[in-house]
C-alpha cells in the first residue's frame, strides 16, 4: 500500500481537464529554447529564399515610408520636427514603430497561423509569439543600421552635430518595453481570436490607425496646448517614441512618470496576456 502511494507521486506528467490558472509551465518553455531559435531562423531565412535582394528588402520599406512622410507631413502639412532633420525624424519613428507593429501583428496571429502545427504536436505555444518578437529584433537591427548610416551621412556631409553618448544605452530598455508590450497585447488578441474572429478584423485597421495617435510623424511638443493632446498622452507608446528620439538626438518630450506609465502598462498587458494565453492554449484546437 505504501509503495502504491509512492508510485502515485512519481508521475512525470499529469494531463488534467482543469488546471490552475497560474500554472504557467515556464520550465517547459526553457526546454524548448532551441525551437525558439530555429523558428527565428526559419522566419528570417524563409522570407528571403528566392529573392535577389534578400534582407535588403528591409531597407526598402522604411525608405519609402520616410519619403512618403516627408512629402505628406513635412511638405503638405508642414509639421515641425523638433529641430531634428526631417529625414532622421521620420526614419527613427518608423523604425521603432515597425518593430512594435510587427511584434503585435505577428503575436496576434499566433493561433490562427499556426493551427496546422499546433493541431498535430505539443510544444509550449508561447514559443511561437516569442520567436516572432526575437526575429523582429533582427529586422529592427537591420533597419536601425540603415538609420545609423543615414545619420552618419548627415554628420559628415551636412555638419549635423551629434555625439555618441550614454543616452544610446537607453535604446535597449526601450526596445524591451516595446517588445513586452507588443508580445503582451499580441497574445491577448490571439487568445481572443481563437473562437470569435471579430477581433482579428478589428486589430488589422486598429494598428494602422494607432500610428496616428503615436508621435511617429509629429513630435509631442507640437501638440502642446491642443485640446486632443490627452489622446496621445494616454497612448503608452508615446513616451517610448519620444524617449527613443531623445536617446538618439537629445530631443524629445517625456517625463520619468510617463515612462513608468508605459512600463507598468507593458507589465500588466504582458502578465494578463500570459494568463489568457495559458488558458486558451489548452483547448484552442477545438474552436479555432
Amino acid at each position: 500500500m505504501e509503495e502504491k502511494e509512492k508510485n502515485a507521486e512519481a508521475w512525470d506528467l499529469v494531463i488534467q481537464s482543469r488546471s490552475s490558472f497560474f500554472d504557467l509551465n515556464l520550465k517547459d518553455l526553457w526546454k524548448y529554447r532551441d525551437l525558439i531559435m530555429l523558428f527565428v531562423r526559419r522566419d528570417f531565412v524563409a522570407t528571403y529564399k528566392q529573392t535577389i535582394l534578400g534582407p535588403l528588402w528591409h531597407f526598402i520599406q522604411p525608405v519609402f515610408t520616410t519619403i512618403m512622410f516627408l512629402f505628406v507631413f513635412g511638405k503638405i502639412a508642414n509639421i515641425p520636427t523638433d529641430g531634428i532633420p526631417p529625414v532622421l525624424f521620420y526614419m527613427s519613428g518608423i523604425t521603432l514603430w515597425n518593430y512594435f507593429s510587427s511584434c503585435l501583428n505577428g503575436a496576434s496571429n499566433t493561433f490562427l497561423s499556426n493551427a496546422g502545427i499546433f493541431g498535430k504536436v505539443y510544444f509550449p505555444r508561447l514559443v511561437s509569439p516569442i520567436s516572432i518578437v526575437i526575429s523582429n529584433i533582427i529586422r529592427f537591427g537591420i533597419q536601425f543600421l540603415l538609420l545609423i548610416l543615414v545619420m552618419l551621412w548627415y554628420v559628415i556631409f551636412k555638419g549635423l552635430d551629434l555625439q555618441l553618448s550614454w543616452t544610446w544605452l537607453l535604446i535597449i530598455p526601450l526596445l524591451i518595453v516595446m517588445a513586452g508590450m507588443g508580445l503582451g497585447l499580441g497574445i491577448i488578441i490571439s487568445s481572443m481570436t481563437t473562437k470569435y474572429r471579430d477581433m482579428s478584423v478589428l486589430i488589422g485597421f486598429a494598428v494602422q490607425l494607432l500610428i496616428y495617435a503615436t508621435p511617429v510623424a509629429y513630435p509631442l511638443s507640437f501638440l502642446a496646448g491642443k485640446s486632443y493632446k490627452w489622446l496621445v498622452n494616454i497612448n503608452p507608446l508615446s513616451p517610448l517614441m519620444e524617449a527613443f528620439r531623445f536617446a538618439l538626438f537629445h530631443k524629445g518630450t517625456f517625463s520619468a512618470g510617463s515612462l513608468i506609465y508605459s512600463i507598468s502598462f507593458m507589465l500588466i498587458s504582458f502578465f494578463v496576456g500570459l494568463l489568457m494565453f495559458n488558458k486558451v492554449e489548452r483547448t484552442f484546437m477545438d474552436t479555432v
Partner: protein
Amino acid sequence: MSDSVIKVENVSKQYRLGQVGTGTISHDINRWWHTIRGKENPYLKIGESNDRSVKGSSDYVWSLKDINFEVKRGEVLGIIGRNGAGKSTLLKILSRVTQPTTGNIKVRGRIAALLEVGTGFHPELSGRENVFLNGAILGMSKAEIKSKFDEIIDFSGVERYVDTPVKRYSSGMYVRLAFAVAAHLEPEILIIDEVLAVGDAEFQKKCLGKMKDVSGQGRTVLFVSHNLEAISNLCDTGILLQNGMMDISGNIEYCLKKYITSSRNANLAGISLKDRLKRTNGNVLFEEIKGIKNGNETWDFNYDDEIIVYFKTTAQKETDGLSFYMALKHPFSGEIISNIKTIITENKIRAGESLCFEITIPQRTVRPGQYGLYYVLGNKEGKIYYDVIDTNVNIPMLNINPSSIDMDENSGFLSMPFKMKKNA
C-alpha cells in the same frame, strides 16, 4: 511495483457541433454565468454518444466518454475503431494537443506523438534545415539532432537532396525524411497515428521494422491504424473504441476479432454520401445490400452454402449505363477475389429509378473465415465511380463458417477444383 507508464482515468471529451457564430456566444455567456456562481457547466450534462450516422437532437456530442485504461512499460498498444470512433481524439488528448473535458491522464516518461509526419516542415527550407526544425518541434534539442543527423539522413535515403528545399522533393522523399526524423526520437512513449499509410511498400516495411525495434528496447508504443495487418503484427494488446466509448480492451487478437465482427447489421441508409469514399460522384447510390442464404437475410454462411448478395441501387441523377464491381478482401491483406465485374445496364437510367440485382458466388469457393467486402458502382467503362462502399464504412463483413466435415478449418482463402489420378 506496478509498471504502468500511462494511466487514463475517466477521460471524456465533448465537442460542440455546427458553426461557431453569433449563436455560440449565448452559450458561452450562460456557461460563464454558471461558473461565476460556482455551478457546474450546464452543457456537460447534455450531449449524445457520437454516432455520426444518426441525426442527433443535441448540439453537443461526446467524442470520448469515460475512457479508462493503463499501459505498461514496453507494451505495444493498438487502438482500433471505425472512422469517428474517437481514436484521433484520444491521441490528441494523450499528446496534449487538446485538453480532456473531464478526467485525467498520468504519464511517466517523455512522450512523443506522431500524429502526422513532417509537422512544421517549411517548403522553402532545405532538407537539412527542416530536419533540425522538425526535430525541435518534436521535442529534441539541437545537440541531440546534431548527433543523430547522419543516422537520420541515412535512414531516409535522400542524402543527395539534403541541401535542396523540400518543396522540390517528391512526396515520397518528403515523407521518408519526415519519418526518419520521427524514428530517431527516443521517447519512452511513442504515439503513432496512421503514419504508415504513406510511402512505398519498401519504406513501410522499414518503418514497421523501426517501430518493432523501438518496442524491443522496452519503450512503450501506442499505435492507431486501419491497417489491421500492421496492428496484429506489432501490438500485444489493444483497445477497441466504438462511438467514443471503450468497447473492449485486452489481447490484440481478441480486439481485432471483435472489431471485425462488430460491423454486422449496420444500415446503409444512415451513411451519408459524405462518409462514403471520396472519389465518388454519387450519381447512383447503393440503397440496400443484403447477404442471402436459402432465402433468408444473413451474412453468416457455411462453407457449403451458395453465397448470394442482393443489391438495390437508386439513381440520384439521370445516368447513362451502370457497371458493378465487387471484391472480397482479407482483413489483414489485400483483395483475394477481384474478378467480379459486370455491366448492369447499357441504357439510360432516369433519376429516382431503382435497379436490383444479385451476385451469386458458388458454394465452396471461399474458405472459412471473415472477409471484407468492397462494392463499386461506376459508369459503363468503369472509369467514373458513382459509389464505393467498403468495410471501413460500417458495412457487414462476410462470415463463412467451416462445415462439419472440414478438417483444417482456418487455412487458405480460396478453394480450387482439382483431380486425382491413382497409380499414374
